[in-house]
């Protein structure tokens, strides 16, 4: 099996300051360079209602800011292999380089190897701003390795934000160390607050030198998770809560979880679909437990949306993922390779690069604002979903046949709202499209009225039209939000004039199988 490499790599290397943004722009087919003169006003617009000190923490964190995830990359280092609980959706024996989901890595690292990897990646990908430790076990079940890694990285690369992910069982024991280590962000996975429900998800935990099972195990875990969340909130550390949506087990209950974590100060809630297939060898995979459909997931996320932000751009990435969210360049940075690659970590170069990214972001925000003012006097009850093929930077810049996923936006007269992404197996390999891949894509974006692409072939175009999805390629390399709003305005005009009959679309499927080779 060949390794999975993101085909849409951003800047492959960071040469001198003057040329690097240009090379990234060319690589991405980005046209914003000529427009940067308009930048400067409006970059704060995406701050929304956030207080400045929180915006400073999240604006370059691709997981905590949906808007940032188009521009900034993250990496995970797999220094924490041990876990202290067992989940029914996890099987630690299974590992495959072509598989992308939490708990899966190709090789584990020592803290010293991890720092080398961070510096190599920071050199190659100057917009990599966040280092996370997310397993493949539990970051806090391996406290010595986790905190040693953070200590070494903080010294060697002080501009990189530190982030950890945990099931929360050991969290209350490590709060002071987390604060001392200057960890900005902590993610806790909380799937239930009712031990009866928790017992259906966690067969056992290992706590205080004992293995607990059933309701006792779930009760201890829940208590420790909520206690840890409260302690972190009190200390001003931003907390994200991850929850796995498991139909008929915790789907309804997650509304209660949402209230409970909101009350304890969580900043962001990320409800993710269960990934479950028999070939993963998990309890849920083997007993036929299904994951939710796209519509079921969106309905739950919408029900939880209120005072707390909902994260909808999570790709449930590997514990050794590298790159923009949605691309995985981990295979480029294997331990063998990082020992051979050069390190030229330079704070000034990285800052200059990131300042240019900020200018790009500002242009995109201004463009959207201008389009939205056209809607000022207009209101319509119509909402439609559209799919977008993108390689990042907030642009429609991916070929339909090369897209590994589509980003989905909900369009209404109040704007374009990112509501999620749909993974699709690569439709085009070696330039040939295949019929069954096309139907996979159509199933994955079946709830969308249109699909925005940089380019599309004649055959898939006509099949999409047959399936009721309009292929749109006239906004190639333009901003996503602005272009989709322009399209939506003309859609509404056509509905008004009677040229088009507005119809609701159906549901869509969330892909469960292994991601196949993209290179």
């Amino acid at each position, binding site marked *: 099996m060949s390794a999975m490499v993101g085909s849409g790599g951003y800047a492959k290397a960071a040469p001198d300051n003057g040329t690097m943004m240009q090379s990234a722009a060319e690589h991405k087919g980005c046209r914003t360079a000529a427009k940067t003169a308009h930048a400067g006003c409006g970059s704060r617009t995406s701050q929304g209602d956030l207080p400045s000190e929180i915006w400073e923490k999240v604006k370059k964190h691709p997981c905590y800011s949906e808007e940032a995830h188009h521009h900034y990359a993250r990496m995970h280092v797999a220094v924490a*292999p*041990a*876990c*202290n609980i*067992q989940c029914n959706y996890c099987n*630690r*024996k299974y590992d495959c380089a072509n598989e992308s989901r939490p708990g899966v890595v190709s090789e*584990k690292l020592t803290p010293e190897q991890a720092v080398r990897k961070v510096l190599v990646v920071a050199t190659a990908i100057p917009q990599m701003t966040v280092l996370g430790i997310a397993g*493949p*076990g539990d970051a806090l*079940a*391996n406290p*010595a390795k986790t905190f040693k890694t953070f200590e070494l990285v903080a010294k060697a690369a002080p501009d990189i934000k530190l982030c950890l992910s945990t099931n929360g069982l050991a969290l209350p024991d490590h709060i002071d160390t987390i604060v001392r280590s200057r960890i900005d962000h902590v993610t806790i996975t909380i799937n239930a607050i009712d031990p009866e429900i928790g017992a259906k998800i966690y067969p056992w935990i*290992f706590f205080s*030198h*004992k*293995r607990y099972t059933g309701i006792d195990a779930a009760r201890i875990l829940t208590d420790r998770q909520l206690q840890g969340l409260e302690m972190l909130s009190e200390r001003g550390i931003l907390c994200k809560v991850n929850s796995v949506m498991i139909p008929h087990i915790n789907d309804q209950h997650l509304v209660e979880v949402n209230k409970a974590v909101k009350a304890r100060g969580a900043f962001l809630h990320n409800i993710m679909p269960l990934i479950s297939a028999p070939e993963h060898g998990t309890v849920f995979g083997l007993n036929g437990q299904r994951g939710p459909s796209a519509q079921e997931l969106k309905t739950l996320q919408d029900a939880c949306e209120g005072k707390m932000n909902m994260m909808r751009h999570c790709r449930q990435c590997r514990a050794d993922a590298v790159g923009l969210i949605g691309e995985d360049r981990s295979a480029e940075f294997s331990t063998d390779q990082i020992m051979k690659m050069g390190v030229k970590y330079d704070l000034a170069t990285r800052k200059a690069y990131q300042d240019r990214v900020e200018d790009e972001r500002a242009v995109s925000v201004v463009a959207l604002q201008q389009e939205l003012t056209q809607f000022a006097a207009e209101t319509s009850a119509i909402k439609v979903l559209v799919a977008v093929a993108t390689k990042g930077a907030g642009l429609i810049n991916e070929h339909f046949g090369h897209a590994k996923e589509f980003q989905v936006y909900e369009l209404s007269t109040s704007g374009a709202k990112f509501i999620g992404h749909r993974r699709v197996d690569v439709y085009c390999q070696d330039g040939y499209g295949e019929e069954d891949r096309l139907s996979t894509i159509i199933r994955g974006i079946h709830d969308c009225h249109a699909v925005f692409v940089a380019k599309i072939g004649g055959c898939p175009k006509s099949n999409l039209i047959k399936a009721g999805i309009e292929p749109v390629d006239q906004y190639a390399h333009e901003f996503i939000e602005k272009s989709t709003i322009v399209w939506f305005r003309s859609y509404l005009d056509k509905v008004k004039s009677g040229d088009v009959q507005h119809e609701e679309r159906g549901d869509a499927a969330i892909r469960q199988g292994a991601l196949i080779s993209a290179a």
Partner: protein
Amino acid sequence: MPFKIIASQCTSCSACEPLCPNVAISEKGGSFVIEATKCTECIGHFDEPQCVAACPVDNTCVIDTSLPRYQAPA
């Protein structure tokens, strides 16, 4: 002198290593091994053998039946 780790089932996750009260566990050739002469089945330390309780794969840390059971000193 009793517990052993079945190498073909070991995920090499290292969960057992720091838990062993006798420092009998170490990594060798990609999986973890228990030094039989050091293992005390956790008798006198904990209610249950720590490697067994923490291991994510059932029946991977098992009694080595080719060896006599550990006898706590009188």
